[in-house]
């Protein structure tokens, strides 16, 4: 009796082993194809409402971005991705906040229209092995007053029949700031730098044939000049430079859930993230995206995002009195606010050619008068060959 159930078990195990070995033999994790992708974005910030503006320009930033990404297979199991970015920015930016007639905060904006450009290049060397993969990244970004270099290494180790993977990474970088001087703000710094060092560990697991889940924990330390040289604060009638602590430690936790729904031929993406830093800002975000496959090789992706953060310990829109620790910032990025955004993306594939377009609206709610809202228009195309 036992003999034959053993026969079935033994042959099923041998067949499973054969399949996993054949899978390795046929695994083509790298497609060995060249690809080229182009993406252009128009980012337009909404005007600042008249009732929240003290003085200065009401129109804010517009950024035009061009991105070009090329993938070059190097060997059978490695490839190089080169990404270039050029963006030009124009508009006015928030300087500081003053109390209005009834104590309500009002934004002081810069007057002059700023014209700036930023260029960035990223290199990613990706290698694939039987049980692991790794990526080495280099990044360099340059603006007239700001340059940044970054280095990253990330790896993944697959086990449990390739069902589970442990992911980890380290990244480090240095930013150098040499702000444009302005006679109106004589105290502005001349040349400063900040360093960052961070890392993450994560796990991802194929739970069912239609479900992929990942969890990631990251931490990062920033040391050096972490203030914004162009921002000022209003302290009891006088204006002083933005001054933040020179050390920031942050921790983030992300959960990524991908569920394929065969009945709809669609995939639901759920991303949850939580964040905390030692400036007492805590934040959480939820991102939902529905990837709907449609006839004639169309794909429609509606998505929405909600984000909330609490304010930093030393933040205030303006200060009635001085602080004993000497830290001041009225940057809206450090205030408490909630952001909502909705996005619709359409993708069309034709043979090895792809065209895509998207529109996104991002709005914010909070007490800071300078909180940003924006519209983002994107158009992209790509080809593999």
């Amino acid at each position, binding site marked *: 009796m036992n003999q034959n159930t053993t026969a*079935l078990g033994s*042959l099923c*195990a*041998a*067949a499973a*082993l*054969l399949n996993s*070995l*054949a899978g390795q033999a046929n695994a083509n994790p790298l497609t060995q194809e060249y690809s080229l992708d182009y993406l252009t974005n128009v980012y337009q910030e909404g005007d600042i409402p008249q009732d929240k503006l003290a003085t200065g320009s009401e129109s804010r930033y517009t950024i035009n971005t061009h991105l070009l990404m090329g993938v070059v297979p190097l060997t059978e199991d490695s490839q190089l991705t080169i990404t270039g970015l050029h963006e030009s920015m124009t508009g006015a930016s928030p300087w500081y906040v003053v109390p209005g007639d009834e104590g309500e905060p009002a934004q002081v904006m810069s007057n002059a229209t700023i014209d700036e450009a930023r260029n960035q290049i990223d290199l990613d060397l990706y290698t694939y092995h039987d049980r692991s993969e790794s990526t080495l990244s280099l990044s360099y970004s340059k603006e007239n007053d700001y340059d940044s270099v970054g280095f990253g290494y990330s790896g993944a180790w697959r086990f449990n029949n390739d069902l589970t993977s442990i992911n980890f990474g380290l990244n480090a970088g240095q930013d150098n700031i040499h702000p444009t001087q302005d006679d109106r703000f004589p105290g502005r710094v001349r040349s400063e730098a900040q360093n960052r060092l961070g890392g993450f560990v994560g796990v991802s697991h194929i739970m069912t044939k239609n479900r992929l889940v990942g969890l990631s924990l990251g931490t990062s330390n920033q040391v050096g000049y972490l203030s914004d040289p162009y921002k000022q604060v209003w302290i009891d009638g006088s204006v002083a430079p933005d001054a933040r602590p020179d050390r920031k430690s942050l921790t983030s936790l992300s959960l990524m859930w991908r569920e394929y729904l*065969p009945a709809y031929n669609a995939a639901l993406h759920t991303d949850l993230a939580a964040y905390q830093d030692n400036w007492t800002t805590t934040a959480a975000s939820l991102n939902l995206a529905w990837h709907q496959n449609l006839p004639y090789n169309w794909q429609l992706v509606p998505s929405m995002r909600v984000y909330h953060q609490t304010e930093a310990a030393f933040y205030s829109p303006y200060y009635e009195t001085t602080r004993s620790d000497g830290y001041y910032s009225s940057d809206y990025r450090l205030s408490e606010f909630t952001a909502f955004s909705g996005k619709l993306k359409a993708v069309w594939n034709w043979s090895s050619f792809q065209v895509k377009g998207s529109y996104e609206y991002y709005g914010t709610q909070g007490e800071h008068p300078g909180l940003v809202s924006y519209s983002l228009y994107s158009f992209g195309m790509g080809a593999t060959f």
Partner: protein
Amino acid sequence: MNGTHLHSVKFRAMGSPCELIIHTSQDAGPELLQLARDRLTQLEQKYSRYRPDSITTRINAAAGTGETVPIDQETLGLLHYADSLHTQSKGLFDITSGVLRRAWDFRSARLPEPKSIEALLPSIGWRRVTWSQAGISLPTPGMELDFGGFVKEYAADQVAQRLRDSGVEHGLVNLGGDIVVIGPQPDGQPWRVGIRHPRQADTALLKLPMTHGAIATSGDYERFMLIDGVRYCHLLNPFTGFPVHSPFASATVIADQCLIAGSFSSLTMLTAETDPDWITRVGLPYLLIDQSMQVLSNMESR
């Protein structure tokens, strides 16, 4: 699922008539069928005894030379599977028994000389083969490996897998009667898989509805000769060198994988001479047709 179209192709591969049927979008169909056939061609080229550049030919050519022929992961998996088959069948399924083909010519209508069979028996014996991750070496000249006993079933699984990986949800792979079903038909109806009448070619004795999984049949009608009313078929006992006399004309087994279905249908035929109830203790759905064309099955009547 709107917008799916039926695409099918019939061709010969691995010495058998084959058919692929898929329901997919108008554009993707031909490309997917080609993708599936590419995988089949790849396996045929890799394991065919008839091709001078196949791994099987290379291994057989090195028999008795002491040379260890290096093998890839997939071949290692197949050898490990053959080893399991040998163990589970107590040696009745032996991938070195193909040499008996030299004595048995089923088109000759003549029994081979017992001497010629005796001369071949020393060349049979999987246990004497040295194999590992590093490679394989056949110990004596004239020894031969033959993956033919299960590579077609394995190929059916691989072809079906390639189609599933490409998003095919409704399809059928038929490699000479080794069948894998990829989901039901687009309208939700099962595929109706015919079981051949063992004594009447091209006639289905009955049809089985299938929505998933694989089905394989082993029969005494594939290659045989009748001499003085006795049927000598291609299923040879590696210990005696003579055909098994199975009480069954054919054995059909259903499993998730064609490789499993095919192995158990072959083992049913090989073991039936001494243990006709063997398959009833395995735990897989089976359908046996005995020599008087009576059907014995553990499946509910359909």
